[in-house]
């Protein structure tokens, strides 16, 4: 359980102290709305008080994996080189929610019994995960060698002037589920299977309504 002073503080002053960019700072009058970062630990607890009555912490970027020793006293110099290392030591968002949705006898029942609210929560959680993956693709184009696709894109553009990219083009890699490349790859895989095993007689689609 978080102690109260770790959850929030009340400040009187100009607020020049260093503030994490994901923190929520509420002022008396500051325009209509403030958007909350999905990296905030209270993101879900603030929106679903009946599922998380104790204001339970949600996902945040620094939850270590089991067995990883956290070195709290990292100095500046080491912080940078351990950054890379640390990326592979933290629980990712999808795994966090995957863990949370399981049924365990030791857990409270609010999250499981929430019925329609639980459905809403699951959709919300998935949207958050998906958004984060898309954000990663948008912000790491260099790392993913997105310029490599440029030639291909130019070729498409010359044949078809109507959909010349307006603004920025971001290519979804085939590892992005339900993205066009992922679909095409799956389709071609299945065609390859057909070629190897001869044509199929029936095409069965199974969907599930949880």
């Amino acid at each position: 359980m978080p102690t109260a002073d770790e959850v929030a503080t009340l400040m009187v002053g100009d607020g020049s102290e260093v503030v994490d960019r994901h923190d929520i700072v509420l002022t008396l009058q500051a325009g209509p709305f403030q958007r909350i970062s999905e990296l905030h630990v209270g993101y879900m607890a603030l929106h679903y008080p009946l599922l998380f009555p104790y204001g339970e912490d949600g996902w945040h970027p620094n939850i270590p994996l089991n067995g990883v020793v956290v070195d709290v006293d990292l100095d500046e110099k080491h912080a940078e080189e351990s950054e890379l290392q640390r990326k592979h030591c933290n629980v990712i968002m999808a795994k966090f929610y995957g863990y949370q949705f399981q049924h365990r006898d030791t857990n409270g029942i609010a999250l499981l019994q929430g019925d329609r609210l639980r459905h809403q929560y699951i959709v919300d959680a998935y949207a958050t995960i998906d958004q984060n993956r898309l954000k990663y693709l948008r912000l790491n184009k260099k790392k993913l060698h997105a310029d490599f696709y440029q030639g291909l894109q130019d070729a498409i553009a010359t044949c078809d002037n109507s959909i010349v990219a307006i603004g920025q083009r971001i290519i979804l890699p085939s590892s992005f589920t339900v993205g066009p490349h992922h679909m095409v790859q799956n389709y071609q895989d299945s065609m390859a299977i057909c070629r190897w095993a001869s044509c199929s007689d029936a095409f069965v689609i199974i969907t599930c309504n949880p």
Partner: protein
Amino acid sequence: MDTICGFCSAKMWIKERLAKSKNNNPQFSLCCENGKVLLPSLPATPQELEVFLTNKESSAIKFQNQIHMYNSVLAFTSLGAKVDESVTGGPGPYSFRIQGELYHKIESLCLAEGQRPQFAQLYIHDTKREHQNRHAVMPSLDPTTLDRLLTMMYNINPYVEVFKMARDMMATEGVPMDLKLHLIASRTKDAR
């Protein structure tokens, strides 16, 4: 669901095990990535809420059907997105399509001129009439149920406590124009 994961004690189907693991010693990656992810378990649900969630009485059933409404009356944040109206209300199961990003938003502590309090503001503004204010937002809810849930929130929810502190401060010291409520995003202690 008769199999229990040895690492995180989640209830699993035996067929969900990893293909390389044996029937008599199943391993799972769906729940905890074979022990790599281990998080604090969710605390036991408070008694009042558990009664509402599991009971078969008429008031509890009503609550279960309207749980999303009760939730939004008590929530601090609201949902924001560009909703595509063309698919809502059509035949088939209820669908909700949005364009762009889905996000949660929160409003400033005080009300703008002529505005009714909503979400987090309900915990701060005119709290002598808090029950009535909340009830006015969603008139179809049962006032006694709402009352009991609100009392529960005041007893256990840490965020409510923070907002209550802000309210008390504003009440005793007047309204200092530069008061800020700061909800901290990261945790310093180990989250496991």
